[in-house]
């Protein structure tokens, strides 16, 4: 029996797509290298906050205010100036990084887990389970997210955890929608039929064959979600239903100082810049991650 098609050498083994390879790819592109650097700096600032803050962020310093009692603009002593109570803005921003990042990771983590569970369940089982879950998702989507967050935050006593939960409640729907669609088309693919024919259990099919195909979407949507989450926390804090003072977060720093915007613009500008930078960095990273991890785009960059 001729077996020549079995002996033709298959194409060379593709480079292993392990974590080190992904990291190299990310650093190779300017966009993602920038994003990654900013994120690493911010995480570093959050972790090392007690050591790198030049002043106690809650200390209402006497020399932090001018003779007339107005906040000081950026200077050699107070790099980013001081706020209305004479507190050092740079120190408060560094401590605020902690809050914002915790919210970003925690709230987004909850949103990802919840969204993935709902999306995959609805997509794979379909039928009335899928119907009920997706109608509920649509309902959540149609609800004004900010209003919902404000209502929830107002009902519960604001704390870091509650704020994270509130944000997760609002943010899981997009993830659920995306994964629902992807799972649905995956579930109709032939290799899933093969699994049913072999007699694999539902859990095995979901865990071994559906989930690995979704990992990349989850990673990408996860990173994109972080920026949304941080922005939503800032919005909530700005509206006064987020993280409560004196704990600083970028959002509530803006909120506290908004009335002085005209006289002391640095109080709003710097925390705003931090938010934009973080959101932008995660967006850039997520964007490049999608391009690198999607095997369909292999060899095209």
């Amino acid at each position, binding site marked *: 029996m001729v077996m020549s098609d079995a002996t*033709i050498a*298959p194409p060379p*083994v593709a480079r292993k797509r392990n974590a080190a390879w992904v990291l190299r790819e990310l650093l190779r592109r300017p966009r993602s290298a920038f994003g990654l650097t900013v994120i690493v700096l911010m995480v570093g600032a959050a972790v090392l906050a007690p050591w790198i803050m030049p002043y106690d962020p809650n200390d209402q310093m006497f020399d932090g205010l001018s003779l007339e009692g107005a906040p000081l603009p950026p200077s050699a002593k107070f790099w980013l100036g001081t706020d209305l109570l004479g507190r050092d803005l740079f120190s408060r921003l560094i401590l605020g990084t902690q809050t914002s990042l915790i919210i970003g990771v925690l709230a987004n983590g909850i949103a990802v887990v919840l969204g993935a569970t709902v999306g995959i369940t609805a997509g794979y089982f379909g039928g009335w389970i899928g119907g009920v879950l997706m109608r509920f998702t649509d309902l959540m989507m149609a609800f004004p997210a900010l209003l919902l967050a404000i209502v929830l935050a107002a009902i519960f006593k604001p704390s870091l955890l509650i704020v994270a939960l509130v944000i997760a409640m609002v943010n899981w729907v997009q993830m659920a929608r995306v994964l629902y669609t992807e799972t649905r088309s995956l579930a109709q693919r032939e290799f899933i039929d093969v699994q049913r024919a*072999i*007699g694999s259990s539902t859990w095995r099919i979901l865990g071994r*064959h559906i989930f*690995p*195909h979704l990992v990349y979407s989850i990673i990408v949507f996860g990173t994109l979600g972080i920026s949304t989450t941080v922005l939503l926390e800032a919005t909530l804090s700005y509206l006064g239903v987020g993280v409560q003072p004196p704990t600083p977060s970028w959002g509530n720093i803006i909120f506290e100082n908004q009335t002085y915007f005209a006289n002391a613009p640095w109080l709003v500008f710097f925390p705003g810049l931090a938010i934009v930078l973080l959101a932008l960095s995660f967006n850039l990273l997520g964007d490049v991650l999608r391009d690198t991890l999607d095997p369909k785009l292999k060899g*095209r960059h």
Partner: protein
Amino acid sequence: MTAEENSGRAAPRPVLTVSGLSVQVATPEGAKTVVEDLSFTLNHGETLCLAGESGSGKSMTALAIMGLLPYPMARISAGSIRLADGTELAGASERALRKVRAMRISMIFQEPMTSLNPVMTIGRQLSEVLLEHKVCTRAEAPGRALELLRDVQITEAEKRLGQYPHELSGGMRQRVMIAIALACSPEILIADEPTTALDVTVQAEVLELIRALQREHGTTVLMITHDMGVVAEMADRVIVLRNGRQEEAAPVRTLFAAPETPYARELLDAVPRIGEAPARPAPDRVRHTVDVEDLSVRFPMRGGILNRVTAQLHAVEGVDFRIAPGETLALVGESGCGKSTIGKALLSLVPWQGSIRIDGQQMAGLSPRALKPIRRNVQMVFQDPGASLDARMTVGKQVAEPLVVHGLASGSELQDRVEWLFRRVGLPPDHMDRFPHEFSGGQRQRICIARALALRPKAIVADESVSALDVSVQARVLDLLRELQEEEGLAYLFISHDMAVIDQVADRVAVMNLGQIVETGSRDQVLRDPQHSYTRRLLSAVPIPDPTHLRPPVLPREGPVGSPVRPLGEDVTRFAMQEIAPGHWVADRAA
């Protein structure tokens, strides 16, 4: 534009000259040449076939001529493509190419559904082309569109103008595509596998149409196909391509009668021909591995405001058959006749009624848990090995999976079993850690076969298992299947639309139409002495890979095309079967 001169075959007048054409594609490993130094001349009024297996560069050549190479992945790296008036197409600007496309060269593709815009009516799509190229005024467009549809012999052309692509059958869509391609009366029509996605009867009709249009308009046709039957039927001259290079160029009769290169000979030898298959040993029919009685599969069709079940699609209706160990039963029929559904029902992938016994064990009415051990006895090999393998799991793990799922082996025993299976299907076991995309189509199908064999099944459902493969690969996979059958006594349910393949593998054949079997018997009875009109029609449409053989036109369909959809409560009339010879059953003509 079309000079209505009767050029005849005497003095060939070139309309397109391709010389030294090379096309390169960007890959992660660097530029790869997919077409290399290809030269040919296309003469007025002739049909030139580019024939070759997948990866031979035939489609790339067509795209290069049209200036449609996927940018920036592929580009023309050398050579020239010149029209008769000296217009150079290689490296021409998009603007210049747009003038040439549709007006002078147009193209039809394999999949008519994806080539048509699903949200525009047929009439608008036709008018769009006419207006875009200023063939006629806006007021004349609908009239011209209707004329074009009549030209491609579409039934009820007026009605079609207002319809959307999904409302048409595959054959009608391809006719519409041809109408669009011919809208501006181009000199050259490039047809890239125009009938590969179509049923054999429809294929015959579409090929006939292309020939008729060519006679009428004097269009030159460049046809791209892997099917040597189609080549024999259509071509005046043939260029055999392999790995982007020309292997042989010859007039069709010369090529088929005396191929000069070894590759062309190999390619022609691998083509299955009806009536040339050797007789198969008679399997012993004492026991039956598969015993199906009165099998029906119905799918509910929902509709109305309340989304209630309003009708049923009778995909399979009252089908009986038996397969003995070591025997192959082939199911034949056009797409939508329910043949694949029967395969899925055997594996309980679709809900069914009736009785299915696998190796004596009744499957009806069993819970999924009770079904699991019986399921082991019947496994399936699907059509597209690329789609039926998980792209993100190594092939070794995938072959091992059935054993793991059924708790049959673990650890080093599992490893040994998988290695043995790999060797069994002719693959080196050290390929186990690779991913599916690193294998060729034929190798992937071997992996699928290894996986199906893992549970030592008694029966295998092969659903179009070789249809997606090149003929030479197809022949080897069929050899493998045959060898496995002889050694393990496997019963095969072989589902295919390809009569020539069925002729090679089947012991018995069952012909299906609208969910029911219309004729069944031994291979020789059904394929050599067909009795039912539907079987005859199918057989008459099969292209014969022999250019000297003039295939008579396809037999007309008897009666209207039926539909397997019935309102709730109304049953499909079942055909009454008559035994006209021992083992040869034919449905009543009246049915």
